[in-house]
């Protein structure tokens, strides 16, 4: 019996992450484009009324809808905890970005910081998706 168990264990790999999902990948890319567009635009507007939160409320509403769609999609896929945790963390990041924006940006260096964080975040999200696509992640 224990011999059989050893054979079964050695033949079975434990899967910690889902297979590649093209729709999740596409949604992440679309979200990255939207957030990058926001950062580029607002960087030029710092110090003017155009940069105020009130002018960007539709941006946050759109991004939140996109994130909810992404959450529903990733939650519907089995063995997808890592991607779900990444999406959930991204949603919290956007909530905090919105809070910062409501307080107002006083310096371009703040937007540069956000730009750097967003680049890092979306690179990591994309890297994981590419790893899944190539079948490297287990």
């Amino acid at each position, binding site marked *: 019996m224990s011999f059989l168990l050893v054979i079964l264990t050695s033949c079975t790999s434990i899967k*910690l992450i889902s297979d590649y999902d093209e729709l999740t990948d596409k949604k992440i890319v679309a979200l990255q484009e939207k957030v990058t567009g926001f950062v580029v635009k607002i960087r030029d507007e710092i110090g003017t009324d155009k940069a105020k939160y009130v002018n960007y409320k539709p941006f946050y509403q759109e991004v939140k809808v996109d994130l909810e769609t992404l959450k529903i999609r990733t939650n519907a896929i089995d063995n997808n*905890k*890592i991607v779900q*945790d*990444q999406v959930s*963390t*991204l949603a*919290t*990041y956007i909530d*905090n*970005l919105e*809070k*910062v924006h409501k*307080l107002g940006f*006083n*310096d371009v*260096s*703040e937007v540069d*910081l*956000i730009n*750097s*964080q967003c680049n*890092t*975040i979306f690179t*990591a*999200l994309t*890297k*994981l998706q590419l*790893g899944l696509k190539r079948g490297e*992640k*287990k």
Partner: protein
Amino acid sequence: MADIDYSQLLKDMLAAMKQSFTNDWNDAQPYAKAELNSFVDNIKLINKLKSDGKITEEKAKLYLEMQKGSMRIVLLTIDGLTILAVENAINAALDVVRNTVNTAIGWTIL
């Protein structure tokens, strides 16, 4: 506002993360180094903006929360790491510098 030894901050945080990740450290190291470097840059920026009177405590806390979010997402890309392991490593790194940073900045931001 006291001076901060940023290279010491980085060393302390790296050592704490290394201890927390144990067997996964080899895989995590390059990502951890890059992310903790960004974290230190974030502290530098907050320190400067505070000196210039351009940031509030509330906003400084939010920027550090956002940096933690970036760290979580990056570290989760490493094979085999769970959110719990990542969270423990981030907390370990922040625990060792909390007093130094809060005292030097003069706000409770960590």
